[in-house]
């Protein structure tokens, strides 16, 4: 139990507290967090690839091919390790299950890589079963570059740094290979409901 802070009353959120993970607060803004500049991405030459420890050749999609895949529109809550949560965000994109449908691998680890050099990693189990998407529309408009446009990964059940902006591909790795923030002291998995913020949490 934390000690009482003299004179602090706080302002309770006017939403169901069961939707706000511990240590988070609700925002109506859409904050932008990135370690570097917003990359300049041209969808005319954009490709999305799945490679690494898979049977056969890497699989790639062009922008038009991605848009031709079955699309899903869904509404989820998102939670950033920097403490904000945003409820009822609506996205459109392709389920990672769809992208992985023809992929043969025994690897259980995936590194997600992006324009701008950012990487993050996940166990395969966190990407499959309707839990992750490559999204390109937010609130029924093309995803803005500052928020990861033209396309970002969306893994809403984990802290938002796993929802890599400007995503360009998935690489299957034989073992866990920590990505950018995982290497910089953040938690390996990042479950907001267990408050897995930093590596020692």
């Amino acid at each position, binding site marked *: *139990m*934390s*000690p*009482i*802070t*003299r*004179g*602090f*009353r*706080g*302002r*309770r959120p006017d939403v169901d507290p069961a939707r706000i993970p511990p*240590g988070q*607060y609700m*925002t109506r*803004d*859409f*904050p*932008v*967090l*990135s*370690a*570097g*500049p*917003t*990359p*300049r991405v041209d969808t005319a030459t954009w490709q999305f690839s799945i490679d690494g420890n898979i049977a056969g050749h890497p699989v790639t999609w062009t922008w038009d091919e991605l848009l031709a895949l079955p699309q899903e529109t869904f509404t989820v809550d998102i939670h950033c390790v*920097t*403490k904000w949560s945003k409820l009822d965000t609506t996205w459109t994109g392709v389920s990672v299950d769809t992208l992985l449908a023809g992929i043969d691998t025994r690897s259980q680890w995936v590194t997600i*890589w*992006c*324009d*701008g*050099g*950012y*990487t993050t990693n996940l166990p395969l189990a966190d990407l499959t079963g309707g839990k992750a998407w490559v999204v390109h529309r937010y609130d029924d408009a093309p995803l*803005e570059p*500052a*928020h990861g446009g033209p396309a970002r990964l969306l893994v809403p059940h984990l802290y938002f740094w796993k929802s890599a902006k400007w995503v*360009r591909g998935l690489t299957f790795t034989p073992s866990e290979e920590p990505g*950018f923030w995982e*290497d*910089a*002291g953040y938690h390996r998995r990042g479950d907001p409901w267990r408050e897995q*913020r*930093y*590596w*020692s*949490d």
Partner: protein
Amino acid sequence: MARAAVLERLIPPRVSIVWHEATVTEVVVESRRARTIVFAIPDWPGHRAGQHLDVRLTAEDGYTAERSYSLSSAPEDGVVAVTVDEIEDGEVSPYLVEEVRAGDVLEVRGPIGGHFTWSVDEGGPLVLVAGGSGIVPIMAMLRHRARRGSTADVRLLRSVRDPDVALWSAELAALTPAEGLQVRTTWTRRAPDGWDGPTGRITEPMLADLGPAPDAAPRAFVCGPTPFVEHVADLLIDLGHDPARIHTERFGGA
């Protein structure tokens, strides 16, 4: 070549980030709406310039609120200080700016963050660009540079709305002239009386004039509100700076 352009990685020591009970030793009025809160934290593991910490406040009924704030103290200062800019209609910053006083005990954890950091051991040149209270982590870098007697080539351009909200104008003036350090200001709404320097938002010529040239391969640290950081980072790339050497820290929505 997206995969080759791997961002520089600065890996901090893998120390546990635990909650500390931090005693407020001093509250310093920095501007009309900003305060520096100085903590004594017995077991603080030390920090790098540019890192931040988390503050947790607890109400009588157990309700808690947590936020992150950039450290403004240099690693060499022997104290841990954050500088908080009051956000209108905020939940935590108004408490920290208006209510906290010496003797209070708050819970903090840190230091946190390994990317927007600089040590004199890494040398220069550096381009620092601050919008508003984005100066806070950059001030920790300048103080660190001064405490260590570094002569690394460091150029700061800060963009400030008006003199009422400017942070550390006197200290920045006192830091210069110093070998290798340049500090410049542009005022976006109202300049001080008698000002004959730059005004208005940051432009490409302002950044070109600030230098150093991209050929010198400076690292850039840009901190401020999201639209400010987007604008400045775009200008730096247009000038020819390597995107992989531009570090950004943003606040607010977009």
